[in-house]
């Protein structure tokens, strides 16, 4: 039997959907016994949400004042404390999990699989390398404890059910370092859906030409209830903030609908959107590589087309 511990990601009040995707990945392992661990200052609300996820057998609630902010250096010894007896320790492949899980793996002296896109059993996993240009099947020797980050774009979120798994309180006995202090985090824009989990994404590239022009996309996004994304070129040019970057070095996403305006389609960008259900590309260059993978392509001037799409949607809704 595989005993799987999943480290929950949350903001103190709400469980991040990435955690439910880790649960889905873990459920693919035959005989999985799944525990979710919630590290928080007061984890009552988050633990209650985690407990309702289909497939979760138990929730560990680890409350400590030091857990008000998710600092890898502070969390890692606590994860190690509760990981005793677990064969697998999973976290999401978000910046939270990417920061924390290797620190946990090193303390456990365990190997780590990053960006797991499929679990083919308790010891066999698939993950991307070379910016997604190679998919590697990795075998972990039986009996080796394994740490993994789960590529959230590869899994559906486990559904929340009516029944709840038991929540167990755990006291922190691990010694916590004080050498790392949280200072601040820039305010997240809460008026639009989160890019990582949105079902629709409107994205722009260098062709937008300026930060002011980029605002054109916000209007369409709001009409569609979509999140806004950007190519690395647009971010580097200062047209959009860094947290909107989609691609290998930004966010890897899998929305139902991805609308790319003025994005040529560099490999590193395409890596970030390959799992999108439908890709729409609008670009004035008919030779742009993005048309090679787009489900629907339109060659033309985005400055005319975006307002027109907005008008057409408005006219029919």
């Amino acid at each position: 039997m595989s005993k799987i511990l999943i480290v929950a990601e949350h903001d103190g009040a709400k469980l991040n959907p990435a955690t439910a995707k880790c649960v889905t990945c873990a459920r693919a392992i035959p005989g999985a016994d799944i525990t979710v661990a919630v590290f928080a200052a007061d984890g009552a609300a988050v633990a209650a949400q985690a407990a309702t996820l289909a497939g979760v057998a138990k929730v560990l609630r680890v409350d400590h004042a030091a857990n008000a902010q998710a600092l890898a250096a502070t969390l890692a010894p606590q994860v190690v404390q509760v990981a005793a007896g677990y064969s697998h320790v999973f976290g999401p492949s978000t910046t939270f999990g990417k920061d924390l899980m290797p620190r946990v793996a090193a303390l456990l002296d365990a190997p780590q699989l990053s960006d797991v896109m499929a679990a083919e059993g308790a010891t066999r996993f698939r993950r991307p390398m070379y910016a997604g240009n190679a998919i590697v099947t990795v075998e972990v020797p039986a009996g080796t404890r394994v740490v993994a980050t789960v590529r959230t774009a590869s899994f559906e979120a486990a559904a929340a059910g009516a029944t709840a798994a038991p929540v167990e309180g755990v006291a922190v006995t691990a010694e916590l370092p004080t050498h790392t202090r949280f200072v601040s985090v820039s305010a997240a824009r809460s008026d639009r859906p989160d890019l990582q989990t949105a079902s629709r994404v409107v994205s722009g590239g260098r062709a937008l030409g300026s930060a002011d022009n980029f605002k054109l996309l916000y209007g369409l996004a709001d009409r569609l209830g979509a999140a806004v994304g950007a190519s690395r070129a647009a971010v580097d040019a200062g047209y959009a903030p860094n947290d909107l970057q989609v691609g290998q070095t930004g966010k890897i996403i899998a929305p139902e609908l991805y609308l790319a305006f003025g994005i040529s389609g560099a490999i590193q960008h395409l890596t970030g959107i390959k799992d999108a259900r439908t890709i729409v590309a609008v670009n004035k260059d008919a030779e742009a590589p993005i048309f090679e993978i787009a489900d629907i392509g339109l060659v033309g001037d985005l400055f005319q087309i975006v307002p027109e799409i907005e008008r057409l949607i408005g006219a029919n809704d």
Partner: protein
Amino acid sequence: MKRILVSIKRVVDYNVRIRVKPDGTGVVTDGVKMSINPFDEIALEEALRIKEKGLAEEVVVATIGPADCQQQLRTALAMGADRALHVQTDAPIEPPVAAKLLRKLVDKEQPMLAILGKQAIDDDASQTGQMLAALWGRPQATFASKVELAGDKATVTREVDAGLETLEVELPAVITTDLRLNEPRYVKLPDIMKAKKKPLETLDAASLGVSLQPALQLVKFEAPATRSRGVMVKDARELVDALKKKGLL
């Protein structure tokens, strides 16, 4: 001495189109251009800038791998590193092993900062820096887009999913670099000549008391599933109609 240790990795150049070998044993690397991992180049640039501000006295660059890696160490010396350490091995090195070897170099060099790229663009693991910090028992500030040193502390801005997070860490510490931290300098010809005279020390990886044995077996490599080209529409109305037909609007 106030020293910064930068670790670099030799990887397939980021402009090379990656091809999986037909027999599934790996990717084609024969005759392919190799370079310093781009994130590690940013790490080195940051270390050099810290030194140029007078906040560090020496930048030591290290790498782990076969003899060919000395090309990348020479490039790093030409960029401005003061000396280089080559931990030589022909064995494939997994991140936990790399972290343990770097931990040995930390013992040897006693740096105030270790700066690494946030991930290598070959295995895309993004593990080594965090693992080194854990083994060293020191703070980590990953995915850095801004680093400021003052006294025995570093204030680091990190690129996280929510936006930008700022941490304050006590030194010594490990920093891993994101794309927008800086733009690495170009190497000039006279610097390449000068770099040939800079010290480069070779250490046998097997002699450092770390097991080099990989824990994971890479069973097979496959090319990713490809998306096929879809349909072209001629205007916005056709586009909106097509989306409606698919039930997406």
